[in-house]
């Protein structure tokens, strides 16, 4: 690789991120074409994929060397000290080049070779079939049909080829509506609820500067509401916060909507009516002020709702603030919570969750179809649609279903993964943790409903890892059209089969698929239910985590149980064989044997020692006495920094004995 100036630097120190007394590991730093590798003196390896690097920073030279701070997109932060400034500079420059590629073709996925042949690769790509998924939902049916309007990406470049629309919506209506909508993203079906016959549809905002009404768009919305035989009323959810919309109206004079802002207290009926009234008044006032509202009559049978999810820029800076707070050395509890509050991160998560709950409730309680949109209909809309479907349909809470959900609502509908994750060296303002928020919402659901999900936290973390890794083709590009142009299916591999290969790691041991109660999730959104996701944002800060994981133990135990069940079957058949043999061999002893197996005298006489069946828990249970210096309270007493190897080894001796 032409960017690599130096491949190996020795005597590099890796600083502990939180330690105030500069505890460090010394080792060797290697630079490969795809990874940065640090091997410390205990031969422990730290691999960092170049694509994971979000920023590289060279700090001012110190006496011990030149500090290099690398922040990763998976929230790993490493702090190296390179002894010679020259080396540091070389690494710094190389990493700058390597972490920001200009072309898709330079990404890891195009060189990654897991030794599969073409048919296996193709099979991997065919694992998720969206047509199959729509069939599972029950479309096409008498009300919904597959439209070929976008077969050549002529109407909308960022939509997939196959789109489902109301059967009564003709092609001219679709074309007309798409001209009225930003980026041509006209209302299409995202999820169809078979029992309620209600649909979740998605689109983008109406085009700004378009001051007249658009009859086709009105017709299409009519068609959607008519496609629901149970409830003619439908909701249009604008996921943007109201105050932002007002200022936007002021400038754009766009055809607006009637504001029916849904507060977070949406579930309390009484308050809804009360606040609805307020909003209606508000909307009237706005209309009187000449802000160009569309007459509600134009869109009959429609209720407009606002839910306040902020835009990608707010989200980006919110996460930045959060990470800044968390990275502070010697963080106090108060600073942590005030930082958490001022970052607003959990508030944003809650807003997404509230919107999804509103969506689910509209379908479950009112049987109403819902049309969701934000500005372009690929960020907040994807969050709300996918999370809403997840609440409604237990299939999406399985491993396979979750993959389908991501493929459908995120990848196919054109969430701009490459821009949002900064795969290429592009506009930093396009980067935003939208998908991370979605994963976090799912994590919050798993916390409230531990038995409702087939997958576990590790699955979410692994997916998060790979949206940035560029190791697989799934998340490259910004829409289906771009992916086809890149020939991803021929040149790269799909992530999903690799996840399925490791399925054991990602299964939730206490998953309850039978429970009927879990068909629709109704999470509580009282604030105290939202917690900081330590395992995501401090995934690599081992010292902050519990030293023993109940979850892992249960997971292994579950595995062990399966093995044991097998063993039992095997043993039983062996015993049977044995008995048969003996009965065949010696008929006379037959009687004796039938008594023997349970004979107590024999049992006690046999000096039977129970065997260790599987070494399952060993690795997990070699409990760490951990190191007090890891745990943030060694910060005051410098004289405590003496080494204590003898004591430690003694402890581990005990550990081996008793665990």
């Amino acid at each position, binding site marked *: 690789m032409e960017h690599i100036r130096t491949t190996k630097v020795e005597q590099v120190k890796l600083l502990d991120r939180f330690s105030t007394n500069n505890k460090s590991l010394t080792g060797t730093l290697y630079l490969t074409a795809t990874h940065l590798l640090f091997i410390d003196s205990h031969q422990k390896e730290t691999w960092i994929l170049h694509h994971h690097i979000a920023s590289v920073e060279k700090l001012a030279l110190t006496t011990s060397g030149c500090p290099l701070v690398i922040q990763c997109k998976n929230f790993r932060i490493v702090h190296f000290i390179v002894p010679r400034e020259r080396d540091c500079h070389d690494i710094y420059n190389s990493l700058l080049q390597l972490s920001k590629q200009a072309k898709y073709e330079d990404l890891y996925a195009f060189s990654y070779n897991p030794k599969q042949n073409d048919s296996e690769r193709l099979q991997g790509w065919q694992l998720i079939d969206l047509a199959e998924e729509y069939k599972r939902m029950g479309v096409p049916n008498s009300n919904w049909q597959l439209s070929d309007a976008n077969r050549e990406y002529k109407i909308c470049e960022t939509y997939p080829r196959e789109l489902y629309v109301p059967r009564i919506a003709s092609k001219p209506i679709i074309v007309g509506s798409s001209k009225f909508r930003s980026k041509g993203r006209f209302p299409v079906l995202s999820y169809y609820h078979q029992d309620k016959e209600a649909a979740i549809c998605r689109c983008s905002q109406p085009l700004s500067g378009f001051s007249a009404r658009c009859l086709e768009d009105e017709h299409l919305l009519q068609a959607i509401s008519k496609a629901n035989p149970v409830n003619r009323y439908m909701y249009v959810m604008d996921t943007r916060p109201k105050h932002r919309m007002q200022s936007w109206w002021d400038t754009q004079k766009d055809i607006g909507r009637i504001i029916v802002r849904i507060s977070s207290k949406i579930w309390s009926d009484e308050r809804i009516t009360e606040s609805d009234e307020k909003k209606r008044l508000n909307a009237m006032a706005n209309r009187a002020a000449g802000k160009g509202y569309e007459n509600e009559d134009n869109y009959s049978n429609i209720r407009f709702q606002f839910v306040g999810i902020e835009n990608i820029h707010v989200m980006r800076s919110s996460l930045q603030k959060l990470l800044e707070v968390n990275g502070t050395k010697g963080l106090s509890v108060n600073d942590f*919570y005030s930082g958490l509050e001022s970052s607003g991160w959990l508030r944003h998560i809650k807003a997404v969750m509230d919107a999804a709950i509103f969506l689910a409730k509209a379908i479950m309680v009112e049987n109403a179809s819902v049309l969701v949109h934000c500005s372009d209909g690929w960020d907040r809309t994807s969050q709300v649609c996918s999370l809403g479907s997840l609440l409604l349909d237990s299939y999406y809470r399985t491993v396979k279903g979750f993959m389908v959900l991501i493929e459908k609502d995120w990848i196919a509908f054109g969430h701009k993964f490459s821009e949002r994750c900064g795969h290429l060296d592009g506009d930093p303002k396009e980067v935003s943790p939208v998908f991370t928020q979605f994963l976090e919402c799912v994590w919050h659901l798993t916390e409230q409903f531990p038995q409702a999900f087939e997958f576990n936290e590790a699955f979410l973390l692994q997916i998060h890892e790979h949206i940035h890794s560029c190791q697989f083709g799934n998340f490259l590009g910004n829409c289906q059209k771009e992916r086809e142009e890149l020939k991803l299916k021929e040149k790269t591999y799909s992530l999903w089969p690799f996840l399925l290969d490791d399925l054991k790691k990602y299964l939730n041991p206490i998953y309850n698929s039978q429970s009927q109660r879990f068909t629709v999730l109704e999470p509580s959104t*009282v604030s105290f239910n939202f917690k900081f996701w330590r395992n995501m944002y401090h995934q690599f800060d081992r010292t902050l985590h519990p030293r023993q994981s109940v979850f892992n133990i249960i997971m292994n135990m579950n595995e062990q149980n399966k093995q044991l069940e097998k063993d039992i079957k095997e043993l039983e058949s062996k015993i049977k064989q044995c008995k048969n043999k003996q009965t065949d061999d010696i008929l006379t002893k037959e009687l004796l044997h039938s008594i023997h197996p349970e004979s107590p005298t024999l049992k006690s006489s046999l000096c039977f020692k129970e065997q260790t069946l599987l070494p399952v828990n060993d690795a997990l249970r070699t409990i760490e006495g951990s190191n007090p210096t890891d745990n943030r309270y060694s910060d005051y007493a410098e004289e405590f920094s003496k080494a204590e190897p003898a004591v430690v080894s003694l402890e581990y001796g005990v*550990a081996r004995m008793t665990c």
Partner: protein
Amino acid sequence: MRGRGGKEKLFSDRNINLQVRLCCPRRNNRTTQEPTFQYDFPWLASFRVPALPPGVVLGEQPLPPGVPSGSGLEAGPKAASPFYPGCSGGGGDCEARGPSWSWLTRTCGRHTQTWPSHSPKPRSSLGQRRCPPQPGAGPGFPPRSPPLRPAQRWVICSSAAVTSSRCRGSAVPWFLPLGGMEFAELIKTPRVDNVVLHRPFYPAVEGTLCLTGHHLILSSRQDNTEELWLLHSNIDAIDKRFVGSLGTVIIKCKDFRIIQLDIPGMEECLNIASSIETSEWRLSYVNKEFAVCPSYPPIVVVPKSIDDEALRKVATFRHGGRFPVLSYYHKKNGMVIMRSGQPLSGTNGRRCKEDEKLINATLRAGKRGYIIDTRSLNVAQQARAKGGGFEQEAHYPQWRRIHKSIERYHILQESLIKLVEACNDQTHNMDRWLSKLEASNWLTHIKEILTTACLAAQCIDREGASILIHGTEGTDSTLQVTSLAQIILEPRSRTIRGFEALIEREWLQAGHPFQQRCAQSAYCNIKQKWEAPVFLLFLDCVWQILRQFPCSFEFNENFLIMLFEHAYASQFGTFLGNNESERCKLKLQQKTMSLWSWVNRPSELSKFTNPLFEANALVIWPSVAPQSLQLWEGIFLRWNRSSRYLDEAYEEMVNIIEYNKELQAKVNILRRQLAELETEGGPQESP
């Protein structure tokens, strides 16, 4: 299988027959395993019927079925009689206690063995074969000096204590080595097999090592080999070494002989070594009438070299008479945690020679210690104006003082009130919730306490330094720190019994004023300045550690919640009163039931047992980073949200564990069957 192995290690049914024979009628056998005496016989207490002191209404009393109420000590079920020979009525405590030492009882997991002293005791082959004068057992054996043997002394002491109604010896912690000769009851491992004895110029001998009240005996159990009988008093010094799990104890005798014992098993080796080590500690009864320190128990552990007279002097120099006493002895390196009240140095820098001597007596030659003051330097300096103060380094040159700031009294109470208010607010406003949570400062207090406890544990385990902990009175933050340090350091205190013992020792006996601190909780409008959720904070800290080491505790969250409930409102007498002296005056032991007697019933225990528990002999260092600390939802959100799904998930988890055990058992049975069939089938096939 590891799980069971680990458990058995802690509760193993060690063979104590020999010990019983040699050392009766002492209570040696019980203390070998059981931490304190109070709940050594929960079954006993459960037969006692609580009677209300006149004028005291305790609410409903749960009576065991079939027990007539109001009958004092009268035992309903017949089973009580063997435990209380000659015991007939409520007033007969002294009598009842006296003979009660003559039976020996011991619980080891499921088994209870009882030997009345007058019945023939189980004899070991070793003892039957060769009987040199039996130390401490035979009638002809002359009592050693001091003239009273410990057992007798104990009876006297306990009768003294009994007059004040609460006879408990829990002042002697189970972790403490108090030299073999005087405290046979403190022998933790009386017998180890496969010990190899090395002596110069003799072949190595493998045999069984026994510890008796006065001797260390090694016998190969073969007729033609000699046995080693070594008087404990002959031991001058010992060294310990470990290679893997094989421990080596080198004993240097006063007659210049040096022998080496290879003892398999780290725990056994440590126990043997600590039993024969000459102890630097003794029990003191200086406070038996609660005259020296009203908030201390009748019996305390102090350095051997300090006599009671000096203790009385030291008591006048310490706040509330709380002179420095032993709180914890770290077996691994012999370091100790001591606790006390603040020194009353005042503005003119008073000093007390005895105090300095006492504190220095706990240090080994050339060692330094740390004094952890739970107040900030500022607060400590202010305390001087009120007659309090801190140890001047000039007068305690071997000690380094560290100030940590743990809040007290109304600040904690306000914190609790704010936190509960925040949790009760069903707000949907994220910012409001976070700012309220922050403003309550509750987690800040948790972090401070845990940090200080970790610091204390670090001094002991990593620095190899002894510590003295005190704040102002030494009844609040001091106890939080000493008890949490023990949770971190001592595997035993993470078991149910061990934790109960810890509460008993470090909170009840150490004089935490429960009555004052827990009179009101978060909702009451009347605010008294001495109310503070000190104990709740401690439990919360334990919960934080439990969350970080979910397999290292024998108890679960429910156990902590139960303790919290009973500390604030209970039908049991355990948490009544502010200290031992008050409890004695209230005659709680005669008139109320002990919480432990109820908790330790198998039916109750099952609710509090952690299914994931595996004994973890390591020191466990919790993380105190704010990201690692969590709001204790089980307490604070308990009534504010539905925990149905979480409870079901927990049940499912328990099911998986149970199922796992079942399957393992079944596989083992099948393997055994198969092995039997094969061994039977094998020879038949060959001919």
